[in-house]
Structures are given as C-alpha cells and as structure tokens.
C-alpha cells in the first residue's frame, strides 16, 4: 500500500496541513511502484528529506498506458461530450482554488520558491489555465469545405488518444496545468510524469482530479526518473503523442526516441538564453524592475529568463550601477518568510551546475560584478549574480545556466543588438525596453523568438501562446494554439454523385 504523507505547516506565510497519497495514480487508484522502490523528496531550503514517493517503472508505464487506452475507448475521447469534459476541468479548477494555500505551501516546500510567489503566480496561472481550457472543451471544431457540387467535405478535430507528458521541476504545478488543460479539453487520456525532484503538487492534484470525478484511466500520474519512466514514455508504442518541457539535451533524446519507435507526435518546450534589450530611450526605472524580474524571478529557473541583458552604450554605466544597487536589495531566505523574494535553487545537482557555470565565467575572463557565491550555510542558495566584460563565445553567454546569473552586454545601435540577440541556438523569448513604439515593433519583428515582451518580461497568460523558435522547441503551449497539438484532423469526403 502506498504511503500517506501528512504535513502540518506553521510558518509566517501559511499555517495549515496537507495529507495525500504518495503512490502512483494509475487507473483511478493509488498503487506502489512495481518494484517497490521509492524516491526521496528533498527540501531545498535545508537539504533534508521531506518524504518519499513511490518510484514508477517501465511496467507501471505499461499499466498506465493500458488504463488510458481503455478509458479512451470507453469513457473519454469520443465517449464524452465537450461540455462534460469542460465541467470536469472547471470542477478541478474550483477544487484547486479551494486548496490554493495547501498547494502553494507544498510547491514552496518542494521547489524552494516563496509561498507568496507560488500563490500569486503558480497557483493563479494554473487555476486560470484549467478554467481557460474548460471553456475550450465544447468549442473544438473542424470546418466544412466547399469543393465541387457533387461532394461534401468536412474535417473533425479528434483527440489524438493516449498522451505522455513529462514536466520539469521549476514550475511543477503550472507546467502540469499547461499540459493537462489542453490535453483533457480535447479528449485525450494522459500519463503524466512529474519531475523526480518535485512530485508533490502533482500527486495532490491527482487527488483533486479524482475528487472532481475524472473517470479512471483518464489522468494517470507516474513518479519516476527520466532515464526509466521518461524513457519508457518516449519509446512506448501505444503512446501516440509526447509532450515534454525541460532541457534541450533531453528534448533531443525524446525526439530521437519517437523517431526510432512509433513516430509519435512530439512537442517540446526547451531551453533558452533570452535577450533582454535596454534601449537608451526606455523608462529606465521600469526597465530596471522588469529586468530584475526577468532574470531573478523563480531564482532564474525559468526557460524564458532574460539572462542576456543588452544595454545601450549611452546608458550602460548608469543602468549597470542602478541594476547592481537594486539587485543587492533582493532578499534571500526562508521561502515561507513573506519578506523574502528568492529561495534556494531546487537541488544539490542544480546548485553544483550553476556554481560550475560561475567558475567557468571567471576562468574564461568575465568579471563577477556581483554575487557569484553561495548564500548561507544550508540549503541550495546562490546569491544573485551579475557578470560583465563577457565575450560572445563564453559558456555563460551561450549556454542556459538556469540560475540567478545574468550577463550584461553593451551594444551600439539597433542593428548591433538584433545581431547579438539572435546569435544563439535558442529562440524562446525576448524583452525590449523603449518608449519608441516604432522601434519596439521593428525590433520585435526582427528577433527570432517565440515571445517578445515589450516593456515587460516574464508575463504569461493562459490565452497567449508560448513556445520556441530554433532549438528552444517544437510547437506551442497555451492559447488556442495548444489545442492543435492535442487534436488530429480527420477529413471526411462524401460523394454525392461522382461516378467512375
């Protein structure tokens, strides 16, 4: 029998308790992993074990896929009308609203982000995303197509079937909502693998999905390691679509696995090294605040983080001085302290990787202008770090660090910054700061990125698509666009009189 996790919080930000099952949620039931293994879940604020969760295996993925197929053939897919799917999604969103504080506390505990940000960003957007897609469920439509007088043709947008979804640890619940929302709205059945670092809110949400009344097998949550469970999803012959958010390295493996197995439809939302462009005619105070939010929000663990900060030569010195001053005010500490902005990085592994990047920056000759070291004695805290004097071929300029590390680069004019900004294998996001709207629109057009934020950064809405150019991914999440990746088009031709 899988274990029940109980936890009472008594913190300045939240007091209350949670209780849920830490097993695998397959076919509407909580089960142990087939090999009886467990994964320890670590609190990144102190490195201690919070609890352990059941570890899934290839066999568990097989079971989940079988359950999902049965559900798709009998109680979901074509068997349930859109308004019923919509009602269930809305019910799930309402339950998440009811347990907003509990979910935010769990997310904070597990991921290290502050309770305040978890609630106002992760929870708000996750609930909003479920409500948004609840509204789409009865609005999936094809078209009728005029051809010749003796033919009628129409398309139907059908659910793909059984979908595997692999999500990361940086926004555990939000990524879950981005994945489950459109998949379920369109009528697919899902096998979701949360990150082994942050499975807790996915398990709590599985409990809520059960309570909402999703039929068994429609939503399955299988904890596990990427190398086993993630791989099992990627190569599974009976999974017809896989959606992944994470690193470009792993995304490539998933695409390869799909190519060599059943050519499952694949969408990838991968890394970024997004430019944050400060023109000399910007509102500098606003630009500073957005830039800090752009790189340091979620401790830099955002694929769309504005990690390359380009500043016009005319205002470079002034901007850098103020940017440094403001960054010094970023308060690190206990995620449950309401005055804290930045908590720990998610894991020891992640902490080590970021520190290696900081070392490589030093070795390659960049200047550590601010930070560059651990904060405190325990937990995976890293001080907000600013590099200057960087060159374009340095690792810290080319590679995604996924931590609170920004590089500041000077530019001379519009052409120069566009060239530098596009000089990357990535193309996820970008931000532009200028009061000249003509310049903003022209620059936006020239940037090779899936999102351009004008006079803002790291803004996400359920209605607005998100995804990458170049090696930042394939496909789009959010908005109506995401539905395209969870439906398959059937064209129906009806012959009314054409004889051969």
């Amino acid at each position: 029998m899988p274990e029940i996790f109980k936890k009472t919080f008594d913190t300045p930000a939240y007091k209350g308790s949670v209780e849920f099952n830490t097993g695998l949620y397959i076919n509407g039931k909580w089960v142990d992993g087939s090999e009886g293994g467990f994964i320890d879940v670590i609190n990144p604020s102190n490195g201690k074990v919070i609890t352990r969760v059941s570890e899934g295996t290839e066999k568990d993925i097989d079971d989940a896929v079988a359950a999902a197929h049965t559900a798709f053939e009998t109680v979901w897919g074509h068997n349930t009308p859109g308004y019923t799917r919509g009602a269930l999604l809305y019910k799930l969103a309402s339950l998440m609203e009811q347990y907003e504080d509990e979910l935010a506390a769990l997310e904070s505990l597990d991921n290290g982000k502050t309770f305040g940000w978890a609630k106002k960003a992760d929870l708000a957007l996750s609930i909003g995303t479920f409500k948004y897609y609840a509204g789409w469920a009865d609005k999936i439509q094809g078209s009728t197509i005029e051809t010749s007088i003796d033919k009628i043709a129409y398309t139907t947008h059908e659910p793909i079937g059984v979908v595997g979804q692999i999500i990361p640890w940086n926004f555990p619940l939000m990524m879950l909502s981005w994945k489950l929302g459109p998949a379920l709205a369109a009528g697919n059945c899902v096998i979701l693998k949360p990150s082994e670092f942050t499975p807790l809110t996915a398990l709590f949400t599985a409990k809520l999905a059960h309570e909402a009344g999703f039929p068994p097998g429609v939503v399955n949550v299988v904890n596990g390691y990427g190398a086993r469970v993630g791989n099992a999803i990627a190569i599974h012959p009976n999974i017809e679509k896989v959606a992944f958010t994470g690193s470009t390295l792993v995304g490539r493996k998933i695409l390869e696995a799909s190519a060599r197995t059943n050519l499952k439809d694949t969408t990838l939302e991968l890394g970024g090294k997004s430019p944050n462009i400060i023109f000399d005619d910007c509102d500098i105070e606003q630009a500073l605040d957005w830039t800090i939010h752009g790189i340091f929000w979620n401790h830099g663990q955002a694929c769309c983080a504005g990690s390359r900060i380009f500043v016009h030569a005319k205002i470079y010195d002034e901007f850098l001085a103020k940017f440094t001053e403001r960054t010094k005010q970023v308060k690190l500490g206990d995620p449950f302290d309401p005055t804290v902005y930045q908590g720990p990085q998610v894991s020891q592994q992640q902490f080590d990787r970021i520190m290696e990047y900081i070392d490589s920056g030093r070795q390659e000759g960049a200047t550590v202008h601010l930070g560059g070291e651990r904060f405190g004695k325990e937990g995976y805290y890293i001080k907000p770090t600013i590099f200057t004097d960087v060159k374009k071929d340095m690792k810290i300029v080319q590679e995604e660090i996924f931590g609170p590390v920004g590089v500041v680069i000077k530019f001379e004019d519009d052409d120069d910054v566009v060239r530098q900004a596009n000089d990357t294998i990535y193309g996820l996001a970008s931000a532009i700061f200028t009061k000249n709207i003509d310049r903003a629109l022209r620059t936006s057009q020239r940037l090779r990125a899936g999102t351009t934020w004008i006079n803002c950064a790291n803004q996400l809405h359920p209605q607005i698509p998100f995804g990458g150019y170049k090696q930042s991914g394939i496909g789009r999440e959010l908005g109506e666009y995401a539905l395209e990746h969870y439906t398959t088009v059937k064209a129906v031709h009806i012959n009314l009189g054409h004889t051969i």
Partner: protein
Amino acid sequence: MLACRRHLRLSALSAYTDTLTRRSAGGYFLSHGPLAPHIYSSGARALPAPRYVSSSSHCINSSKGSRAAPMSAGVVEITVPGTGKKISVPTGLFINNKFVPSVDSQEKIDCVNPATEEHLASVVAGSAKDIDVAVAAAREAFNTTWGKNVSGFQRSKLMNKLADLIERDAEELAALETLNNGKPFKIARDFDIGDSVGCLRYYAGWADKIVGQSIEIEPKTKFAYTKHEPIGVCGQIIPWNYPIQMWAWKVAPALAVGCTIVMKPSEFTPLTALKLSELIVEAGFPPGVVNTVPSLGSVGGAAISSHKDIDKVAFTGSTITGRRIMKAAAESNLKKVSLELGGKSPHLIFESADLDQAANWAALGILYNTGQDCTAGSRVYVQESIYDKFIETLVTKAKQLVVGDGFDEKVGGGPVVSKVQYDKVWSYIEAGKEQGAKLVLGGQKRSSKGYYVDPTIFTDITPEMKIVTDEIFGPVLSVGKFKTEEDAIKVANDTSYGLAAGFHSTDANQCMRVSDALEAGTIWVNQYGLLYNNVAFGGKKQSGIGRELGSDALHEYISVKAVQWNIGEKLDWPL
C-alpha cells in the same frame, strides 16, 4: 428551443458518462468565493443583495392624491400548487441592481396562470422614460465597470457564478416558469433551465477567448490588427415561449463580450426575468450591467428600438414585430439589429425512413412546448408510398401525449400561454376546417378552465390554406403528400420563412442532397427540434437576421476595430 442534451444522453452515452452528465447537469459546481475587489476598476462594488425601493422614495412627478400612485416596487408571494411552497417575486423594474417603481407610469402588467386562468401577480409596467433610465445605467456601467474595464477572465467568472445560482434555484425558477407560462414543471427544470445553465457556461468559456487578428501588410513599415470590442449598450426583447431560455440566449453572448443590457421580457411572462435579476445581484455583477424592464411591446419595445443611445437591439418574436423594430432602428440611430422571427418549418418523410422514429420526431416537432416554438415542424410532407401508414402511426403517437396542468407528473404538454394565443390558435383551427382540410385528430375545445388546445392534425391540405401558410404557434399540424424528392424540396421551400427544416431518410446521398437544397438556417436530418449551445441557430429569408448560439452569436455583439499603425513610412506631400 429543445436543446435537450438529455436525449443524447439517454441514447448515446455509456453508463459511466451518463453518470457524469447527470452530475454536471445538476448541482455540480462548487460555489465560488467572493470576487476580488479589483475587478472593477472604478471601485464600484456589487451590492450584497438587491434593494427594493419604495415608490415614495423614488417617484418623480407623482401627482399627490389625484390619481393612483405608480405601483410600488414590492415583492409578491406566489404559492406553488401542490407543495404549498411560496416564491417571492420582485415586482419593480430592475435598474442599476435595484428594484424600482416606474418614474412616470401608473400601469401594471397582470400575469395569469394559463392552466387555471387565475391572476398570479402584477408587476410594474415600464414606460419609455424608464427605458431611458435603464439605458443611462447601462451606459454608465459600460463606461466604468464593464465593457473594456473588466477582463474576459472576470466576466467568465461572474457568468459561471450566475450559472451556479440558476442551477441552485432551478426548482423554484421552474415552478415560476410553469405558473406563468404553463409548460410542464419537469421540462422547465430539466430542459429550459438545464440548457440555460449550459448556455451561460458555454459563453462564460468564450469570455476570455475573444480574439481579433494581427495582419501582415508591409512588414517594414506597417502593422495592423483588429480588436473585437463590445458593441456597447444592447436592448434585448424576448418572447414568452421560453422566457428563461431566451433570456439566457440573449444575455450570455452579450455579457461574454462585455456589453451591457436593457432586457425587456414579454408582458405575458415577466416573472422569471425578475427572479433572475435577483441572481444578477447575488452573482456580483456591477450595477447597470443587466437591467430588466417589463413593459408592453408597444411601449418598452418601441422605446428600445428607437432609442438613440442603444447600440444594438436583439429581438426574438413575430416577423411583424421584427419588421417594426428594424424600421425603428433605421429611423433612429441605425442601431445594429438581430432578429429571430417566425417560421413555418417543413418536415419531410421520405419512403426509406424509419417510420416509427420519424413519427416520434414529427410528433415532438409540432407538439413540444404546445407548438409554441418558432422552429415547430408545422408542415409535414410524406412521400405518397408510405403516406397512409405514416398518418396512422403519427396520430397514434400524438394521442399518447398527455396535455394538462404542468404540475401533474404525467403531463408532457401544457396549455398555450394566454387567452390571446388561445383565441388565435382556435381561429386557425376553424379556418382549417372552413377551408376544407380534413381533421384527423383534435379540433375539439375542452369545457374546463385553462387555455388548452389538444394536439390537432389536418390532412388533405392545399398550398393556399391559412393553416399551411401562416405561423400558428400552437399544436396544429398540417400534413401533405409528395411524389418525388424534387416535389418535396419545392413544397418545403414554398414559404417566406426559412428558420428550420427536417427530414427523414436512410439514403445517405439523399440526405446530403436534401439538406443542401432546403432553404433554412437549421436542417435536422433524422431528428427534429434539438439544439445545442455550441451550434449556431437563426433564420434565412424572413425568419430573421443574424445567428444566436455558437461562436456566431458573439459576432452579433462585437464591433470590429481595425488599428493601422505606421512604424516606418514617411509621407511625401504633396502627392
């Protein structure tokens, strides 16, 4: 208007999804928490409960003593027969989230229970000046707390909340609908109200999905985009046949896109619209977003149609009134007009059809809601090879319907709505007899109380008979005969109307050919009368302008703004 998903549920879904659907149709959602105050940018907040303002405090120009004072905006208690349960109904005009008396009118509207012919309640009859007050409230709300001042996400939340409240109060609303309209209680609760809840939820889902286009023109110098903005203040005039459902069809798309509303319910059935107005307040809509002014068509309806500050009028009702509304719009401020009008819809039975099923649908098509349905399949044409057999089956089916008091469990059809309607329907039956049609069922008046018309079927009809050309809006069916598919299409399309049409055939090619050839806004193939909230509905020819339901209805409440932006072109002058 029979958007009965329950039919689908019974026939098509597995046991498990059946359970889901049933749960989703009744008391399913949790109630939401209170709205965050920041929704309303002006800081205006919804009142916690409606206020009933007495006439003395609000009456302008009331002449002291010499004439009767305007009717006060009070509350009347109506007793539900059988249970003895009391329903309180506000009797004032609902403006700015308050129930108020008329500013200048002494008139009242008397509501009658059509099953007993007894007086139910009297409510304030709004005047043209009351429409002015309501429009001013709606305009103020549009400019400050609704329209572009509130996000789609928040509109969606309020609409879902309203749906929750209607679901909660379904029994009470259904009882009131039955008392005022006559339709069976179960049908009011499960179909009219169930589908109204669905309609609100469907459009709640649209509220955060209103999108325009961004348009490539000259990439280096020009940029353009369109915004789908709410039209503004909408007048909505609804009929008495589906008082709650027509309210939902009108209100839901208008609110979803951000319009504000002056609603005029029918003078025959204003009670549920007033009751729903209480829920508008409880759901948390800002004052002035939805206003309800019961009034006579010739007073309130005319004032809405000719009002200079109403941006759009939507009407459901007779073709003759629709024409007047359009004329008034043309003569006043060219307000946008959408009309959902009458019909004389054909229902064709081809020889390959499953006759038993076809007879069921034909009976439903003319007898549902006692024939008071603009889509009623009032002209049935049967292929001659199966004609005799079909008539026999149809008469048997029609006889099975129990017509009586809506609170009687066995009853599937109620009385017609009013004395006026009763007299009109009977005059058509008499005309049918006089013009030589053969009566094969019904046609006899009852001696008891209530505006009852039993199912009536005429055969041996000719094209010029009044029962064949006119919309009767009662349970009176004309059945004709045809030889070929070509004849059937010709006779089906031989009408000034084009709201709906249905036919039965098991020949797939024939189905496609006939559905293409019929001139109507809705074509039912091997079924009749079913509507879905996500499928467009409206008329061709003189059955109307515009569409309700589906995404199409949103366009009726949207005004497209094209923004053209120069980001690089220098203009040389002179040219």
